[in-house]
């Protein structure tokens, strides 16, 4: 089963990379870009077809390894 995990940095946490990219876009003339935030998506291919179990297990993977709970929130999407 395919699982997509979307990891977002919490809004109150600074995102220096996003700021640098915004500045670069402005220099290239894309001044309409007011904000840039950089996030991650993790695609998992899981050898298991039990939706409930997969959801539970991926949730544990996120809280233990994939996301950093101090800085990030995550969202698990099956399929």
């Amino acid at each position, binding site marked *: 089963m395919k699982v997509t995990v979307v990891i977002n940095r919490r809004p109150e946490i600074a995102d*220096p*990379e996003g700021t*640098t*990219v915004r500045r*670069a876009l402005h*220099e*290239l003339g894309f001044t309409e870009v007011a904000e840039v935030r950089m996030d991650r998506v993790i695609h998992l291919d899981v050898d298991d077809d039990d939706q409930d179990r997969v959801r539970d297990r991926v949730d544990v993977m996120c809280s233990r390894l994939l996301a950093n709970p101090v800085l990030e929130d995550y969202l698990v999407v099956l399929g």
Partner: protein
Amino acid sequence: MRVAVVVFPGSNCERDVADVLHDLGAETHLVWHRETDLTGFDGVVLPGGFAHGDALRTGAIARFSPVMAEVARLAAVGAPVLGICNGFQILCEAGLLPGAFIANRDLAFICRFVEVEVADTGTFLTAGTRLGSVLRIPLNSYEGNWVDPTGQGRIVLRYVDDPNGSQAGAAAVASAEGNVVGVMPHPERASDPLLGSDDGLVLLSGFLGAPVPV
């Protein structure tokens, strides 16, 4: 020889390489990345560092710096253009060298001496070396893993023991004409036996057109 060493915001090896080139007899100038005229320079170096903090991808933003049009012009007229580490990454992003960089295979920054073997003596960088000679030079990068989907890149130096997963073991790559060269390890750091090796001098002398044989 008059050499421009380009300084991007976040470059950090510019003074190191300028000092060593100076000691080898070059007239070196640090040139800010907003410079739009490199007239009068015989060659240009893009030094190591973290231009624009490596935001997005290494070299992704630096390649749009105003100075890059002049770097491309010098490359087109056959002047020697050397990218070291981050400079190599910038030259790839700018399309002046083939390929691109991804993270080291083991996902760790690597700072240590590595051995590289000369695979092509037809570039300025390796003009003073012999095919197959082995040089000891420090590597210092997180994204040193060169990828070239075309498989056509001209490889100038190869790692003896693959430290990072780089395609075909490439440690240095040249343009088809041979006057644009990117090298991932830092020849300027192998410039004094007191620092562990002076094997980089033959490469930098080659850049200055005064190769000393090994």
